[in-house]
């Protein structure tokens, strides 16, 4: 295949966003329709904070790959946007203000102790991607910004219309991004369309953008499943009293570790994963890995068709 013109290449990148950006994710769709429950909004805010903390780190990695002072001069602005010029300013601070506005404890959010394992995995995968790819692909992976401006506008309108319990000051992060994202995206797009000189380069850029869309998508998958109520699949046979506790399915038997067995007994379709964590932390005060254990277990079992997640 021959190299596409810059306009064709841009159209290709935009088509990826149309098809795969997380504005289509069921969780975002429900957010924007106004049907999320307050606890779902809170889980999203607490978890998405972890993503925000990864952004300046990712941008630092990109800076370290750049040879061109003009590129660095521009790109370093992103880190300033996120971290602020001084304590108490910048995007991360605005996100904590959102945490306040939805009724979360900002210290707790900042401590990242409630971050879901699937969210951590997705965000770390993004940093790893940038660490292990060249400047061109790393910049291309940032191009989800092309679609961020629109989603921020939708989101502000949705919060104003449907979630009046969220104080308006909380929305300042979204407002700041409606200005920053288009400018950042224009810079990144100009860079990528200029530097991707061969068809192969263009393919790599498209692949990087797709990968980034996948990462954002799986972040929301994890948030979404935290509030779904898991129950055993209709065909599954639990054998919890077997010397090797397991669940038997059509194509496999899944062995359960000690905590898995206990978690599974709570997956009866009446509790969400978040509620299961709460229940187990009452049973086992001081147990530190419950968030990871429970969500990790439920996600894994859902992936194996042992559990069905009901919304």
């Amino acid at each position, binding site marked *: 295949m021959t190299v596409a013109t810059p306009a064709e290449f841009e159209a290709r990148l935009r088509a990826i966003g149309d098809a795969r950006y997380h504005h289509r994710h069921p969780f975002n769709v429900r957010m924007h329709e106004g049907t999320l429950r307050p606890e779902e909004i809170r889980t999203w805010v607490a978890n998405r904070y972890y993503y925000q903390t990864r952004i300046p780190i990712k941008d630092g990695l990109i800076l370290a790959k750049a040879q061109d002072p003009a590129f660095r001069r521009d790109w370093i602005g992103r880190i300033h946007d996120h971290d602020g010029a001084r304590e108490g300013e910048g995007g991360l601070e605005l996100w904590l203000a959102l945490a306040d506005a939805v009724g979360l404890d900002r210290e707790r959010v900042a401590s990242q102790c409630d971050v879901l394992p699937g969210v951590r995995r997705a965000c770390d995968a993004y940093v790893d991607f940038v660490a292990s790819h060249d400047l061109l692909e790393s910049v291309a992976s940032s191009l989800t910004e092309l679609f961020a401006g629109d989603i921020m506008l939708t989101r502000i309108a949705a919060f104003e219309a449907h979630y009046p319990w969220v104080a308006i000051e909380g929305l300042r992060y979204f407002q700041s991004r409606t200005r920053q994202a288009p400018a950042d995206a224009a810079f990144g797009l100009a860079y990528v369309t200029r530097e991707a000189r061969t068809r192969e380069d263009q393919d790599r850029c498209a692949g990087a953008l797709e990968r980034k869309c996948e990462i954002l998508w799986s972040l929301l998958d994890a948030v979404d499943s935290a509030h779904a109520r898991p129950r055993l*699949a*209709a*065909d599954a*046979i639990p*054998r919890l*009293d*077997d*010397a*090797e506790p*397991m669940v*038997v*399915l*059509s*194509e496999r*038997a899944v062995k359960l570790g000690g905590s898995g067995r206990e978690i599974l007994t709570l997956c009866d379709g009446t509790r969400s994963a978040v509620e299961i964590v709460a229940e187990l932390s009452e049973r086992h005060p001081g147990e530190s890995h419950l968030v990871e254990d429970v969500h990790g277990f439920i996600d894994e079992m859902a992936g194996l*068709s042992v559990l069905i997640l009901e919304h």
Partner: protein
Amino acid sequence: MGAADAKEGHRPYNLVAELTYRCPLRCIYCSNPLNHREVPDALDGGAWTRAFREAASLGVVHVGLTGGEPTLHPDLPDIVSGAAEAGHYVHLVTAGTTLDGPRLAALHERGLRSVQLSIQDASEAEADEVAGTRSHTKKLAFARQVTDLGLPLTLNAVLHRGNLARVPEIIALARRLGARHLELANAQYHGWALRNRASLLPSAAQLEEAASAVEHARGEADGPEILFVLPDYFSDRPKPCMGGWGRRILVMTPEGRVLPCHDAGEIAGLEFWRYPERSLEACWESSPGILAFRGEDWMQAPCRTCPERERDFGGCRCQAFRLTGDAAAADPACSLAPGHAIVRDARREATVEAPVPVYRGDARSLNR
């Protein structure tokens, strides 16, 4: 129950119950024994039910009803009930041309939990060519009956030179039918498949193309879970056949012989005991055939000292026997095996023009 008395690392989790070798199809890669016509259906519903109960105390948790075409066994409903009442997960493996909706629903009521349906190809003409009968359209209707009942559906397609190029279409069909799993099983060269190997063996390039189609499909949301394993003729190491001889899986033939895999009865000189002449436990724990290759004592060089023996158990005994004449030899699929040249030469068959395959049951194929 069960696992408590699992002995020295061998517990049969699965019972593969071959109810009958009869089958209306005549697939060119059928893995049933070449003399399948001479094997009687010796166990009735009561005998199978007793076997399932004994199996439960050996540790079995899952029963696969297979064949041949298991739905041709006249006591199938009682067999399903018997397995379910013994606490097993009951899974039916069928070619899908013999059961109608009401009979399937009745089996579901008796405790059937899932169904595996074999298809031969993605579209009718090619599929019916391989099956040697008109069956594809019936199968599709059957698949819908399965999913309408809410039963998990596994689609199984045996891959070979003639259909590998259509893996993307097979995946699309599985998606359309709402299959939860898709098994893309490369033909194993036993039974009729060995007889027809020269027509079936694919080229490495074909396999690579299929593998990348699978990779692509796995990236898409909401599709079936796809199992695709490269045939061992093309990898340098053998498969851990059946998870080890007499270790995880117990096969019972229509005449009640207890085997470590569906093919082991073909190995000359091995004595396998029959149920109910002896208890299931005796057949599994002590029959000379099962003991012959359980564990590692039987291994020769190079397996005996090879660090990989704990993973692959020296590979497939049946393949070793069939290709080298010595069932205790290293599986010739292994590049370290003395007999590996046989497999290397066979790969070349894929580059010559395919001979006309013979259907299962064709007389001329019997004097192999």
